């Protein structure tokens, strides 16, 4: 961890990858009878500073199919794209943080 912001970004990336893993599970189980959509409560997990494995919840309010499966491929593909974009944004920010630290090191060597 370089500073507080990088720590927050790291937590953000961790949570995004945990969520992406659940999205991948949901898509893989789109045709599994009795499977229920799983997700994490992103906002409260992010505010909760304690790092660790996030709580996995079952998503309420989705239409249940006849075989007891409630995976909505539309919801999952939206989340898939959203997580990937957020991840790109966060890695971009972390990159600029790292490059400014690197610049500071380089300038120190130059003199």
């Amino acid at each position, binding site marked *: 961890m370089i500073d507080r912001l990088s720590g927050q970004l790291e937590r953000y*990336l*961790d949570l*995004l*990858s*945990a969520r*992406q*893993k659940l*999205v*991948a*599970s949901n*898509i*893989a*189980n*789109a*045709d*599994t*009878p009795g*499977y229920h959509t*799983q997700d994490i409560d992103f906002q409260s997990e992010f505010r909760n500073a304690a790092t660790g*494995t996030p709580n996995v919840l079952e998503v309420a309010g989705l239409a249940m199919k006849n075989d007891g499966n409630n995976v909505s*491929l539309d919801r*999952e*593909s939206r989340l*898939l*794209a959203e*997580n*990937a974009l957020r*991840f*790109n944004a966060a*890695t971009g920010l*972390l*990159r600029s943080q*790292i490059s400014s630290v690197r610049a500071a090191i380089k300038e120190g060597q130059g003199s």
Partner: protein
Amino acid sequence: MSLFSALSVGASGMAAQRARAELLVENMANAETTRTPEGGPYRRKDVVFESGSVESPFSPVFQSQLDAPVGVTVSDVITDASEPERRYMPGHPDADKDGYVAFPKMNPAEDMVDLMGSARTYEANVAAIGAVKDMIQRSIDLLH
């Protein structure tokens, strides 16, 4: 290791849908088959999916039981046990004494729709793997 296990989950979904598509194609290919090694007409087959943890090459070392990823596996292949369809074809070599031939009970529309569903779910899994792969690549790019 979280993102790498998401790749295994996507792969398990692809493998399961591929197994389902293979059986659906087999069903359609054998829609008119009247002879099988077990005797009698061909019987329609279908898969049963079950969610379960997926294997990873590093699972015992790197993965704790707590965050074992939930993938999908083919738990069973079921064979349709319903009565075959009987068609009156007296000249057919497999006709019984009344001139009826037992044909597989098949609904091509049902199999075709299932096959399309299987192909779409396969695509969704490919998209999931692509997105996860992109995220991993972005993380690696942080080092450059």
